[in-house]
């Protein structure tokens, strides 16, 4: 077991060493890929600049923290809204045929659309602030949640519904106590896709316009030529995405403990 964990992180360690050495021996241009140690140092100062320790605080409106917080807010409301609305719409479509007939073609037509194409439209409609970013994230995450909820709710075993009914469940109880729990494995898998999409659209929307967020920080630092700090933010975003997926997977396993 311990062996396994060590083995799993060896490739990551090798990559880190390579990242440190390659720029130092000028195998790659250090101005295009600063060595890892420089990136880590920049990361550290990005963490502290909010408190005014370095000159960075003067030039950058936000540190890693303050931009992280505005990104988090966009992400949380975008993804959260998509989950709540998506589950609601998905169940509704699965339960009411006429609603399904109206909404299904829309969902199917929008599903394959590249999610980032929504961003300029949302900016046009909602402006440059947080609203357009939350809406972009929300709309992009909505479809996988709707579809997984829809499929999960449709696939509920008939006799489960019947036995709840014959034990005295009302319509509302049937929804909360049978249909949703039964659809939960599929819903949670759909949300996992949505989490991955949310990170992509979050960063993309902040890269494009605005004055806040980690995506903004990346583009700002990149344009200013501060590549070690830019890489620090890129690494931070990747690590957060990875951590979110791991944490979600853990939560999902815990929730679905009743399966084999």
């Amino acid at each position, binding site marked *: 077991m311990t062996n396994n964990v060590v083995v799993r992180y060896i490739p990551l360690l090798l990559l880190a060493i390579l990242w440190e050495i390659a720029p130092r021996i000028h195998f790659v241009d250090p101005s295009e890929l600063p060595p890892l140690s420089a990136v880590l140092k920049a990361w550290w100062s990005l963490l502290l600049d909010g408190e005014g320790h370095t000159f960075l605080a003067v030039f950058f409106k936000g540190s890693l923290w303050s931009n992280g917080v505005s990104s988090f807010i966009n992400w949380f409301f975008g993804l959260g809204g998509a989950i709540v609305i998506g589950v609601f719409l998905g169940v509704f479509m699965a339960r009411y045929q006429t609603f399904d007939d109206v909404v299904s073609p829309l969902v199917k037509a929008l599903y394959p659309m590249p999610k980032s194409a929504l961003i300029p439209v949302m900016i046009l409609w909602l402006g440059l602030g947080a609203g357009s970013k939350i809406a972009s994230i929300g709309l992009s995450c909505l479809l996988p949640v709707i579809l997984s909820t829809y499929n999960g709710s449709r696939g509920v*075993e008939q*006799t*489960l519904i*019947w*036995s*709840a*009914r*014959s*034990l*005295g*469940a009302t319509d509302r*109880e049937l929804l909360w106590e*049978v249909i949703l*729990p*039964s659809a*939960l494995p599929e819903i949670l898998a759909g949300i996992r896709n949505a989490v991955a999409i949310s990170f992509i659209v979050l960063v993309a929307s902040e890269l494009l316009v605005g004055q806040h967020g980690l995506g903004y920080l990346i583009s700002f630092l990149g344009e200013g030529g501060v590549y070690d700090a830019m890489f620090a933010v890129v690494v931070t975003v990747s690590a957060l995405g990875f951590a979110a997926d791991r944490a979600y997977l853990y939560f999902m396993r815990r929730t679905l*403990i*009743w*399966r*084999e």
Partner: protein
Amino acid sequence: MTSSGISFNGVSHTYRPPRGRPVLALDGVSLEVKDREFVALLGPSGCGKSTLLYLLGGFMPVETGTISVAGKTVTGPGPDRGVVFQNFALFPWKTVQQNIVYGLEKQRMPKPEREKRAQELIELVHLEGFGDSYPSQLSGGMKQRVAIARTLAIDPLTLLMDEPFGALDAQTRTLMHEELLAIMRRTPKTVVFVTHDVREAVYLADRVAVMTARPGRIKEIVDTKPSTGSRAEFIHTQEYTEKVDYLWNLVRDEAIKAQGEH
């Protein structure tokens, strides 16, 4: 005491799958089950036994004919008719204990009482120590016993059981037969009991209805109530053996017909 006789009157049922041809599953079934009577349904696979039970349960609309329970036409499911499904239909996200108390929750029974009742039922179906297990952790026979306990929990006046002992080994099955008969003595119920097992039908039921191959009709109804003595003695009598043989022949003829269809 409320009466709970069942009456099927010219009941037919056609399945209309979204793709494929309509299937006539039942064709004019008429059957009276008296109050507190135990009737077993015997018939070859695919003859419509489950269908008949689902209609009685109120899960599918009765399109042709009528079904009434205690004089009232069946229009939907309800806790007056407890159902044990052929595929158990346990809630996989609930533990054994949570499954068993589900119907009691719906009746707003207070929690301590609910848990006491669940414990009794767990003992009744010999699943001590499995209260916190999930269905996925149980064998087929264990799941079947949970399903039986869940239905018995709400103490319905009418019991609809679809091959409830089909997944049990011979010993457990015999134990469950005794338990079921004991429950029937304590709180008599009207029972419709689907089975493939002729001996089980003769042993448990007051009457056995044999169905024809699909489309299902009632072919013959055989009285199987022991004329003298208890059921435990009945099993060793000439009468029992004769009834079993007689029913065997009826069922075999239909099973051969059902085979011939394919």
